[in-house]
């Protein structure tokens, strides 16, 4: 502020001197300014001074328009030859710098200089890569974009060569890309093999970080399935394991771990059962409980929308032909069992036994019970079943035993 006041008073006194010394015509003469600095291109960090020659000593300011904003600069000395040192914050920013020499709201001179990126100080290679994973085969690719900057965070000059290296399996390639539109970029295509591509870029002595791109196997191809089981019996207890062959993609790469494989089982009644497994090392495994009665399964596996397997057929044999039923307590207690398995061992606990009670061909009730030690018993209470004639159908392990016209 103080400086300014002094400046103003100096200006007024100078004006008075001018008026007294020269004729009225001089005061009317338009004030003109001339740029005496001849250099128009500067490198960032270079000290920039803009000097003007004025035909009259007046207060002037320099207004600089840069990409980020406008700055008003006061002259270095209070002389008629106005000289302006640009502050570092402006002289280090790349781009065209428009300036206006102004005095009391009037523009005396307009021009511009160009500031270029610094070529000496350390660079930084800001790199962006994406997408981070691609699939094998030659059609898919990713892109590396490098935004190289100088020490003042200016994008470096166009046509600067950037060396881009990438490594994949035994292959290592290097390419030189020139910067355009402030950046350098390169597309990197996948090979037929899956794996990991490592990418880096170098400008002079400065290198970027290492970037990795995951190349995932391409789409799976059709495969075969197999099964393993402990025995052939439909005991409703053991487990059948389905496995796939090693599933490969179009290019012979083992498919990615975790690929979901659906196994679809069609049984004798054309009902569908389904189980699934995720692949590990290309092999997916899924489990299924044995049926509890004789059946034939036709099994197909699918990777939804992409690949399918052959169909295999599996037969399950009934564990027994016998379904012993005993009535006691005036037919009000029905004991079923002992149910025996294929080696005459007791059937594992939990086998379902179904009792259907009918009267005059009308179903009154269906009772479900599970076996314990091969046995199940049903009690028919008087309150629910008053004395009359009933029929009973007992089903277990795929066997049926019918008892008609039993008097209670």
């Amino acid at each position, binding site marked *: 502020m103080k400086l300014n006041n002094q400046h103003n008073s100096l200006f007024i006194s100078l004006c008075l001197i001018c008026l007294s010394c020269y004729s009225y015509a001089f005061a009317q003469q338009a004030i003109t300014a001339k740029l005496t600095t001849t250099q128009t291109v500067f490198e960032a960090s270079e000290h920039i001074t803009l000097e003007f020659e004025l035909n009259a000593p007046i207060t002037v300011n320099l207004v600089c*328009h840069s990409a980020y904003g*406008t700055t*008003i600069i006061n002259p270095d000395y209070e002389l008629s030859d106005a000289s302006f040192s640009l502050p570092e*914050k402006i002289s280090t920013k790349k781009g065209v710098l428009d300036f206006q020499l102004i005095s009391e709201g009037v523009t005396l001179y307009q021009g511009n200089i160009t500031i270029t990126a610094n070529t000496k100080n350390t660079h930084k290679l800001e790199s962006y890569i994406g*997408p981070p994973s691609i699939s094998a085969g030659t059609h898919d690719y990713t892109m590396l974009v490098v935004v190289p900057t100088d020490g003042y965070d200016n994008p470096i000059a166009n046509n600067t060569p950037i060396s881009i290296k990438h490594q994949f399996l035994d292959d290592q390639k290097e390419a030189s890309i020139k910067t355009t539109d402030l950046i350098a*970029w390169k597309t990197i295509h996948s090979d037929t093999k899956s794996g990991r591509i490592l990418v880096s870029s170098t400008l002079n002595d400065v290198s970027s970080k290492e970037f990795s791109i995951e190349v995932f196997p391409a789409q799976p191809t059709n495969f075969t399935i197999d099964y393993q089981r402990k025995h052939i019996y439909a005991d409703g207890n053991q487990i059948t394991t389905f496995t796939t062959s090693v599933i490969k993609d179009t290019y012979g790469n083992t498919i990615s771990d975790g690929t979901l494989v659906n196994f679809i089982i069609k049984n004798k009644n054309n009902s569908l059962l389904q189980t699934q497994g995720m692949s590990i090392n290309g092999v997916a495994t899924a489990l299924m409980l044995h049926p509890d009665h004789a059946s034939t399964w036709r099994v197909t596996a699918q990777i939804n929308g992409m690949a399918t397997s052959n169909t295999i057929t599996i037969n399950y044999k009934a564990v027994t032909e016998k379904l012993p039923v005993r009535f006691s307590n005036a037919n009000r207690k029905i004991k079923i069992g002992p149910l025996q398995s294929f080696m005459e061992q007791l059937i594992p606990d939990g086998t379902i036994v179904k009792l259907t009670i009918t009267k005059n061909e009308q179903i009154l009730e269906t009772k479900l019970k599970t076996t314990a030690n091969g046995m199940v018993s049903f009690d028919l209470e008087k309150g629910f079943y008053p004395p009359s004639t009933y029929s009973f159908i007992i089903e277990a392990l795929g066997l049926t035993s019918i008892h008609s016209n039993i008097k209670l």
Partner: protein
Amino acid sequence: MKHRKNTYRILLLLVFIGVNILILFGIGQLFSYLNTGADRTSILHVTSPDAKVYLPKVIWENTNNPGRPIEKQSLASIQSDYLKAWYVKNIAYKNNAPYGIDDYYTQHARINILNHISDQKEKEITIESTTLNHNLSLDFYSLDGQLAILTDNNSRQYQRIFKQDSLLLETQTIASYKVVLLLEDGFWKIRHIVKQSNEPLVETTKPTPISSVKNGQVFFENTPFQIKGINYYPQATPWDMFGDHFNTTIIAKDFDIIKKAHLNSIRIFVDYDDFGKAEVIPEKLNKLEQVLDLARVKDLKVIVTLFDFYGNYDVLDWTLTHRHAEQLISRFKNHKAVLAWDIKNEPDLDFKTRNKTNVLAWLKEMATQIKTYDPNHLVTIGWSNTKVAHLLQKNVDVVSFHYYEDIDKFEKKYTDLQSKTSKPLVLQEFGLSSNKGLWNPFGPSEKTQAEYYTTFKEMLDQQNVHYLPWTLYDFTQIPTSVVGKLPWRKHKQKHFGFIDANGSSKKAFQFFEE
């Protein structure tokens, strides 16, 4: 004794009732006070539609790029975020506070803006600025859609630089930029912005003028045109011509009256708010088109006064008014009924309250804007008196002014104005209210009004002045926004017409006789 007792009873009863009323009133007041404040729905934070705050003209010149084709939606969000980056920067330099900068500039880029802000704070500088257009091309869009490079060609920027609140410089610059944008946290943020040298401007299509000025003479479709018109509002709907009571039958009848009175032009008004501000309501545009079409049929030329009742000349509001003008004017750029676009009615009345520099800068830019959207018609400004009418004369085709002062001084003032400009002069409003009555017992009568016009006519004919008197009708209702609430002012405004409230011609009507 008994009488007194009754009086006491009545008194007591009244006091009781009064106290009760007071208590109830108090409770009511308290209750309504407690119910004021934020709307309850605000708790829900329902996303509000994107507010239209900054709308410089954006043209995408090219979006083909070597990276990958861009989707419409991404392009729209890049555009929106890029404009917001300019908007928050304009506000930051106006207030010297970095509000919103973080959202639109990356960590490294925002340092530059913060540097500017601290520098400005130190030097006590504030800058009001707005960009007026952006000609964008997409140079690069990365495969993963996270990085984009734009070129912004020949972007015009208006700036007003203040030092300690006094204007240091008003300037307009044209600049081109290369911009690197990164998609971070859902915002396209500026990573680098580098100023480049401007591409040479390409001359756009040549205008095919409908109305023009040659050698100080107004031409319409290449024949000399002498404006003999009238300011027009339908009698029932003054200052609300395009409202719910819009009726083309009435307007057509009025146009017949005007035509029979040997007039060739009318002046009508478009209310900025009423027409939808930055997003002009299509229905209103249709109504305006109907009026213009009707005028074409009746062989009347129309001076359309825009931005009626607009009062915010703030630099940050500029682009919104530009979009209003663009939508309205480009629609009628080839209309053969339009004689001139009158930017604003009596803008000089806002000089005191809205700052003269603000108003003039807005008008000047608006004149440029209108010319870019419609080079085929004249542009003018309806100044309220002869003293200020020469302002911005370089930016208009014809100089319009209003005259409500002493009739004896007209010739002098007209010659004074003539000496200041070589552009044709249009006496766009003049008249006398025959408002003799309760509110103004010594005011002009219909006879005085008629005499006034007779005298005026002689002067006008002598000098060949383009004229449009105020106004065709006497009105029964004057909106408060026009002349304020005071009844005598409203009363005056009601009686400027040539035709009275009952629809019969006043004595002044003879003014139109040849």
